[in-house]
């Protein structure tokens, strides 16, 4: 197949949307945290926890949706840990984030080994199945790409709509955006900055965990070590790339996924002339490039990474 033809096949775009789904969840999660002023570097570990928790719930006989819920709760729990350390205690968001990632990842591996001491190959579950939306899925290419996905992908898009709505159309969203820009504006109006920021980190972390769960419950059907593989860090880049706006971040995630899906296919037709590692590097290199391109032009939430103490101005 020609390198260009790939772009016009429905199967390619179906894959793009699938690859984008976990990124969309996690990017929305990170975006909420950062909009409230907290950089959450726990993302990589929280996605790992979510991937395991969701999968393990189903593996232990739970319902698929119960798995998603458990994943979200587990993510929220680690979000609470992160938030407690960074918001009221004002500890370095960099160090705590890395610590949460290390802790979440190691706890997951520990639990996995404890729960499944004997297994050599990771056990499989029955994952979410694609659910074609009648009518819409018949639209060539676009319809097929968007509407023959699993329910979790639809949920990812719903999450974007929801996050946008909440941030821009609800009172609590106003408070979140203000907390990331000028926390004293929030406190002066009688709202607790600590409460808003902690809430945002907890909710955002739950979304990240669902993003992780997508991998084990929708994209694949089992849990294995190192399966997040830097996706969390990429999502942090996507938030910057999207200028902290949900819509733009969604576009970024899809663009990124398209590139990722494309490199996989290119790798297949390149016939091994170029080492496969070069293709695998591209997503990471692309993320760095994206950061360089937008970093100077974008406007950061002004209070991002700045701890807030009550009565401080």
């Amino acid at each position, binding site marked *: 197949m020609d390198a260009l033809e790939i772009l016009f096949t429905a199967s390619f775009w179906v894959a793009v949307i699938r690859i984008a789904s976990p990124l969309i969840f996690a990017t929305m999660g990170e975006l909420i945290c950062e909009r409230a002023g907290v950089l959450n*570097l726990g993302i990589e570990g929280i996605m790992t926890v979510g991937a395991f928790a969701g999968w393990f719930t189903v593996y232990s006989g739970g319902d698929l949706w119960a798995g998603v819920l458990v994943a979200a709760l587990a993510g929220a729990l680690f979000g609470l*840990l992160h938030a407690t*350390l960074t918001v*009221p*205690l*004002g*500890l*370095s968001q*960099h*160090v*705590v984030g*890395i*610590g*949460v990632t*290390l*802790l979440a*990842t*190691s*706890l997951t*591996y*520990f639990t996995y*080994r*404890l729960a499944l*001491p004997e297994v050599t190959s990771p056990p499989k579950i029955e994952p979410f199945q694609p659910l074609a939306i009648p009518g819409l899925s018949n639209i060539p290419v676009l319809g097929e790409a968007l509407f023959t996905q699993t329910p979790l992908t639809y949920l990812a898009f719903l999450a974007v709509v929801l996050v946008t709505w909440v941030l821009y159309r609800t009172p609590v969203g106003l408070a979140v955006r203000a907390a990331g820009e000028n926390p004293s504006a929030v406190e002066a109006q009688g709202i607790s900055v600590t409460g808003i920021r902690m809430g945002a980190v907890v909710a955002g972390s739950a979304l990240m965990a669902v993003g992780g769960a997508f991998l084990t419950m929708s994209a694949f059907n089992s849990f294995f070590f190192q399966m997040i*593989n*830097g996706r969390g*860090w*990429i999502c*942090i*880049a996507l938030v*910057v790339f999207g200028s902290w706006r949900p819509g733009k971040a969604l576009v970024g995630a899809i663009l990124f996924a398209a590139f990722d899906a494309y490199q996989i296919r290119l790798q297949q037709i390149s016939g091994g002339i170029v*080492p496969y*590692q*070069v293709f*695998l*590097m591209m997503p*990471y*290199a692309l*993320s*760095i490039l994206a*950061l*360089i391109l937008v*970093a*100077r032009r974008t406007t950061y939430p002004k209070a991002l990474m700045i701890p807030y*103490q*009550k*009565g401080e101005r």
Partner: protein
Amino acid sequence: MRLEAKPAPTLAVTLLFPLAAIVATLLLVSLLVLAAGASPFSVFYLVARGAAGSQFALLETLTRATPLIFTGLAVAVAFRAKLWNIGAEAQLYIGGVLTVVLGTGALPLPSAILIPVLMAAAMAAGALLLLGPAVLKTRFGVDEVVTTLLLNFIVLLFVSMLLEGVLKDPMGLGWPQSQKVVAEAQLPRLIQGKRLHLGFVIAIIAAVVVWIVTKKTKLGYEMRAVGHNPEGARFVGIPVNLVLMKTALLSGGLAALAGFSEVSGLKGNLTLDLSAGYGYTGIVVAMLAMLNPLGVIASAIFVAGIFVGADAMSRAAKVPSYIADVMVATSLLTMVVAILLTRYRIRWR
């Protein structure tokens, strides 16, 4: 609740809080051990015995501590200046690459010259690798956390490419591994027949040198000033960006020495499992040492002991050895809280 600055802590308090952090960590991890159906006391005893219960155990712990001292120093140096180098893993691997590129026969030199050359080459490579993110940070405002993290993945893939390509050992039975370095490029063992090698001594020397740099030199002073308050540092005439570049070079170089030391001192060749996450663990080592270079030696040995001990323990008790990673990660978080409490008092009203 609010935080209130306290006067400078006494030495006793400074030492007491890390201890409290470790006790808190042990208590928290005990819960997991109980969940695994084992007794915390016997597990901790087994870990301690596995780490320091015999000459073999102790030497193994020191061997494992060697790369952690280097990466811990790399992180300590960078974090002092608030340059968030999370890329020690990548710098370590690049150091390993340079060691095998130049150490597998390309340079026909005697040991006394070859080893310093390899060290310098490894350091230069690691330094340059971190210079990139530092430049992106100062010139374009790109957060170095994300770039150094992403570079870890890129470099590991790059190493994989090399090991399946130009650096592949033809005699390696198809495994992705490099040739062994020549005898002149190998660091001598400190005790005949044991694994502990000269790299450990180099690590100690490095720690002392870094300590002198941070405490006694202009550069160390500048790094601290930039880390505490870049705007204030700029105001008094400290060239902030230049200091960040120098910090990056020093930090990247130190992390790369870990790769050199593991290849030349222990493994002999480069493989994809040269590092067991030493770059990331270095962050914990540095934080446990409160970024003090001499403290890094102690905390690296402590952390290495946990890993070595946990390996031994998991063979005896039915507790997964990942308990070591959990312990190390937990101690990082309890430690940052402890450091906070040495400097601030929490007032609830």
